[in-house]
């Protein structure tokens, strides 16, 4: 305790001073940023008709800068793989909330949440929404189930679970690869199929992201299945 106090008094003060200097530098840099700047919004608006969706953010995420999103989906998968290596799934008894109120509520909550997730996925085509948001909501349903009725999901490490986990990234990668075969470049959607391809990618990704986040909450790899 004494050591912590000394630590806090000397190094703490130096640190706060350094951070203040650093912060001052950041504020100073902010001061010199021009007040008005369109950025790339004009360019985005110009290419919107070719993008296949009506929401600008979705167009950027899944079309203009879709390559980044592909890597980002891989990042989420990497985190899951990391979790798999480090520890098995552990749901403490203390986390389980199997009381009658919750047991009753989730019968209604979980289906509604799944519906909302599907709606958000659909919404992404023309407003704020999309795969990640829908996936997060879906994961919420999964987390509820894990906490209230852990045995209902019966998560086992099986080919089916693995398939759901990778179907999103795999379809995304496939659709990124297909244009290369026909002489184009990566992720260059064919004009007529843009909308449907983006929808497929988002739908598959919602599933994968939802389950991935749920498993990350559960803390690691599920117990081995029978196969």
């Amino acid at each position, binding site marked *: 305790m004494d050591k912590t106090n000394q630590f806090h008094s000397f190094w703490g003060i130096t640190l706060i001073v350094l951070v203040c200097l650093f912060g001052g*530098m*950041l504020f*100073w*840099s*902010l*001061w*010199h*940023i*021009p007040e008005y*700047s*369109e*950025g*790339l919004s004009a*360019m*985005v608006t110009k*290419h919107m008709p070719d993008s296949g969706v009506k929401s600008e953010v979705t167009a950027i995420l899944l*079309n*203009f*800068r*879709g*390559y*980044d999103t*592909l*890597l*980002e989906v*891989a*990042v989420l*998968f*990497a*985190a899951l*793989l*990391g979790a*798999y*290596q*480090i520890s*098995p799934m552990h749901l403490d008894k203390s986390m389980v909330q199997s009381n009658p109120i919750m047991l009753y509520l989730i019968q209604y909550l979980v289906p509604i949440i799944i519906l909302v997730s599907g709606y958000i996925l659909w919404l992404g085509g023309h407003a704020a929404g999309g795969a990640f948001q829908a996936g997060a909501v879906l994961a919420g349903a999964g987390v509820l189930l894990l906490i209230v009725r852990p045995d209902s999901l019966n998560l086992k*490490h099986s*080919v089916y679970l*693995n*398939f759901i*986990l*990778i179907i999103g*990234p*795999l379809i995304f*990668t*496939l659709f*990124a*690869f297909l244009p*290369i*075969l026909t*002489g*184009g*470049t*990566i*992720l*260059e*959607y064919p004009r007529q199929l843009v909308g449907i391809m983006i929808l497929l990618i988002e739908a598959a990704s919602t599933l994968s992201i939802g389950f991935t986040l749920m498993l990350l909450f559960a803390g690691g*790899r599920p117990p*081995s299945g029978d196969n």
Partner: protein
Amino acid sequence: MNFLPLLILIPLTGAFLSFLLPRYEKFISLTVITFLAFITLYLGNIVFHNGPIKLVAGGWSIPLGIGLYADGLTILMLSLTCTVAIAVSIYALFYFDSHKQTSDNKDITKSWWPVWMLLLSALNALFVAADAFNLYVTLELMGLSAVALIALEKKAIAAALRYLFIGLLGSMFYLFGIGLLYALFGTVDIIELTHKIQSTPTTLVSMVLITGGLLLKTALFPVHFWLPPAHANAPAPVSAVLSALVVKAAFYTLLRLWLGPFELLVSDLVIQLLGILGASAILWGSFQALFAQRLKLVIAYSTVAQLGYLFLFFPFYHIENANTIAWYGIIWIALSHGLAKAGLFLAAGNILHAYGHDNIHGLKGTSQYLPITLFAIGLACINLMGLPPSGAFLGKWLLLNAAFVSGQWWWAIILLLGGVLAAAYSFRILLFAFQNDDNNIRIHKPHGLMQWSALGLTIGAVLLGIFSDHLLILLSSGAKFGGLNLTEILR
């Protein structure tokens, strides 16, 4: 057909399929690597003859879409990745199987192959990236995959967590810097930024942030403290990839940004500072390596030192002719260090496998039981010392030239000191390893291919010094500096 993006898409697919079908993961991974090897060779041929490759993902135009770019430097880094990947994968075929028997958790779902494929795609994506935000995502993918791989070893869990923190901190600074640049210039494409950059306070701050973030990830002195525990405690093939490729990737990003957008902003103070930090890294790292008790720890500190050499390019940044020579020099050091260090870590893994420990004092008998491994260690040490005919010799010699051509002769002293210290810690290892063992210790001899893959890499490091002509020409393709005429320097 557009082969460049395949370098990223194929390992990604491999990762997903390996996860789905664990029984075929080795076959899938080896197939992926074979494809990568052929594609890299093919792309190298194109860049050698036709110059850099440029394309934009999605077929959009540049500031909107994400640009990909491959010039000589890119191809060389991709080739380094591929070579190390081949050797490490062959090694891993045997390394992880035998460890499964000794590990305390026999759960069959633990596996390195899917994450390894993700790391490969992250590395490839990073080297071909021409978009600063894309670089952020690839750095994150690389970082998380690396953390996942380090965490395969129980002893390395704390080191993995520390690496995660440092990596995230670095990424945050980098992201902040990119955000400021976008706010000013409305683009995150590196080539566009190079044209549009102006020297304003905001761009200076942005440069400080981005450089700081990348220095954290490159483990430059004094923020190198996360590297030795992480590289020393990780499983041997993981250490090899980390030291050879992952830290180089962060440095590569720094180099690209400094030779591109930040060119106008670079001041003499900053470049000398980086040079001083690099020199400190060389001295401090070598010093620590001299006193470390475990073989893998020695090698990890040696990485800290060798990374310092790379920063010796910066003091020559503004000086005509010297900067060209120095640039070629550090690239050669980076490439040969990558090969040698990977081979050295694989060799250390062999020793760990055979003896059950990697204590320096317990290395006796290596010449009797593991001659191939010892030969690999010897070759790697030749490279670390910078003795001819290794690739590192060529690199160091070029740096020495740059030091004299520019009149900054003091860096030559650092280079020589670094070599002497490297010799010291190398001989320390070899001294113990060459002792004969009379007691006939029981060892688990590693599979032959494990030893040969280590040797193959270190031979490659030596070959880089001997057969450098074509590669030097390749490096000049699309380079900011002109070609390098070795014969002219020899005069």
